């Protein structure tokens, strides 16, 4: 995380700026020796990444073209699993739900930005206390979060519905209504990652040069104008980073669905995510070939969505001067 925080601060990046390694006059062997040294430095990382990332990806992709036996072993079936996937309405629902969670997750970003802006106000009292409060959900186990919110959202005995009833509103079937369930899970997902986003934004905000703000004040900008017209564009690279991370983590929601809804609920089809559907097929129903195809689709979707985000950033992200 500290690495991320560093990366989002424009100043620290400037200090580390690109250093040109190839000055003229070096001999061929010297350059080669340097290259070898370089490779040796990245070898430990490359080896572990190969073992824990590349190998599983390749193995998984292979499995997605097979029909697996219950206790291991597989037979090649070509594209069968993918054809089955395209015809599977549950998979389409899972993709839809996952997309909705990602959208709700993006709605949390302005919220994180505003909270970070408020926390960054000079002279704010109990600053550390507020930061701790906002960050607390991040360090709580996702399963514990799911269990607590499952109780709070409970249709019949939950606190949220009893509050609604007290103020004269009728109960909402948070964990069983097809629409409400998306909001309930999306809300908890935003709530549990808000603190992390706030910390990233705060790091960005603290790197905003004071003289730029002072110049804006001299030009007559009020606090709100300052924030949206000066501060936000300066930290837009941070906002971009946070949005990429948020979308990627939203695409991976599993534990909240697993804990808050569970497979016995009739609302499971309306709320399950791609990763949950993967779990259901691969771990519960033992259909690992099919499950492998599901996560291969997830990998491709993630890459597409991230690529789109990088495309769009050109329109609104401002990189230093």
């Amino acid at each position: 995380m500290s690495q991320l925080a560093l990366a989002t601060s424009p100043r620290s990046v400037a200090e580390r700026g690109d250093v040109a390694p190839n000055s003229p006059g070096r001999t061929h062997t010297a350059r080669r020796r340097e290259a070898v040294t370089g490779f040796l430095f990245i070898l430990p990382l490359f080896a572990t990444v190969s073992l824990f990332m590349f190998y599983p990806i390749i193995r998984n992709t292979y499995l997605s073209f097979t029909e697996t036996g219950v206790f291991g072993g597989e037979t090649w079936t070509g594209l069968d699993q993918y054809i089955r996937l395209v015809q599977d309405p549950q998979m389409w629902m899972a993709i839809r739900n996952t997309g909705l969670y990602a959208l709700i997750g993006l709605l949390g970003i302005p919220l994180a930005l505003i909270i970070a802006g408020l926390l960054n106000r000079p002279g704010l009292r109990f600053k550390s206390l507020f930061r701790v409060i906002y960050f607390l959900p991040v360090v709580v186990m996702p399963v514990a979060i799911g269990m607590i919110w499952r109780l709070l959202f409970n249709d019949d005995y939950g606190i949220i519905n009893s509050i609604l009833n007290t103020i004269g509103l009728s109960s909402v079937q948070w964990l069983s209504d097809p629409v409400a369930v998306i909001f309930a899970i999306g809300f908890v997902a935003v709530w549990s990652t808000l603190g992390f986003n706030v910390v990233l934004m705060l790091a960005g905000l603290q790197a905003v040069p004071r003289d730029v703000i002072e110049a804006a004040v001299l030009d007559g900008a009020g606090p709100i104008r300052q924030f949206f017209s000066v501060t936000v564009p300066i930290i837009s690279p941070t906002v971009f980073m946070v949005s990429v991370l948020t979308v990627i983590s939203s695409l991976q929601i599993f534990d909240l669905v697993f804990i808050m809804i569970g497979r016995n609920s009739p609302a499971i089809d309306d709320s399950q995510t791609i990763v949950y559907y993967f779990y259901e097929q691969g771990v519960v129903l033992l259909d690992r070939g099919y499950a492998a195809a599901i996560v291969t689709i997830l990998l491709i979707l993630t890459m597409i969505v991230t690529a789109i985000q990088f495309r769009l950033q050109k329109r609104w992200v401002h990189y230093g001067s």
Partner: protein
Amino acid sequence: MMSWKSKRLSRVAVAGIAAFSLVGLAGCAAESTGGSSPDEPVELTFALWQPTDVPFFEQVFADFTEENPNITVRIQQTGFFQYFPKLQNDAINGTLPDVFQLTPQELPLYASGGQLATIEGNDDDSVYADQWAWNGERYGNAIVRDTQIIWYNKDLFDAAGLEYPTADWTWDDFRSYASALTDEANDVYGVPIVLSRAGDRSFASFIAQAGGTMISEDETTSGFDLPETQEAIEFWQQIAADGSSPTQAQLAQTNPNALFTSGKLGMLPQRDGLAPVLFESELFQSGSMGVITLPNGPEGNMASTISVGNVVAANGDNVEAARLLVEFLGTREVADQYAQTGAGFTPYPESDQFMVDFYSEFIDLSPALEAGENAFPFWRSLNSEAWFQIVQEELTPVMDELADVEEATNRIAERMNAALAEERPNR
């Protein structure tokens, strides 16, 4: 100036997500060979899901180690819903516990997959012997016997002005009790319609009572398209239509056992061995719970029974020691001890009285003994879980939105027959 850095970071992030989603899929069954001689000290692992059984097994394993000083046993307890997925992964990775618990519903999958070692049966003439065998080979010994009965809340019966049910009660009595006990304003319901595990805790026994079945005797064809089977499911749909059960959504959010112990359910069809779990509730300890055999249907009051037994992993390092342990756990002495500590009923009917005596201060469990006499083993096939899932999926709208029973059950039969056809090559 910043973009290379953030690009690199997101590339890492993209790779990271890939790793997170894919890790855990890889892996293949590894064949391990040999077994160590019992002369050297060995440690066996023993896996189970029932947390209330742990103290009992700790005691029994201490006794076992006293008899066999070279063998110690380590207990691995995992909650029920994670237990089987975990076992499955262990099997694929070749790391199954030396001894673990199964029900006869999972046994065929593991036995036919070559994961289990054969053992000496302890009760070759009992109804359970057949349940713990597959293709003529014996793989496990039952240690727990669970039969379906109805637990009821005396306080709610009193409040509704009803007499407690008696052994001669009928389906109609059951339905009218369920309706009379329901008090929707206070979230109190007569009986929950639980659809997981093919309705073993609701309509399953009623299918047998109506003369139907879930699966043919040779375990190759679905019985859901039989009129008798449909009759039983229709009966339960009427209970749903009366409003006597919480909805499926409510049951998914709050465990039916918890609803029952907090006084929100008048009757709870459950296994008789639930006593140690219910014992932890105030309702139980205040003497407000009763049990009664299932109501009588057209053909009688058959009750499904599920046993829990111990099996030996075929690929373990200490198969001989593990066999010794499973055979020890299958003895009458251990069964007596199990019942004496109130842990549950055992396959030895002779030990039942210990269970009844243990809880007599709080509840009269003797109707459970009668239920045991009319018990039939719950249905299974090679991969039972595959069609348990189908049954739950198709019957949820039947019980919630009152979808047509005949249509739904015919669809179950069709899908189930397809699933059973897939099993055939592995039988």
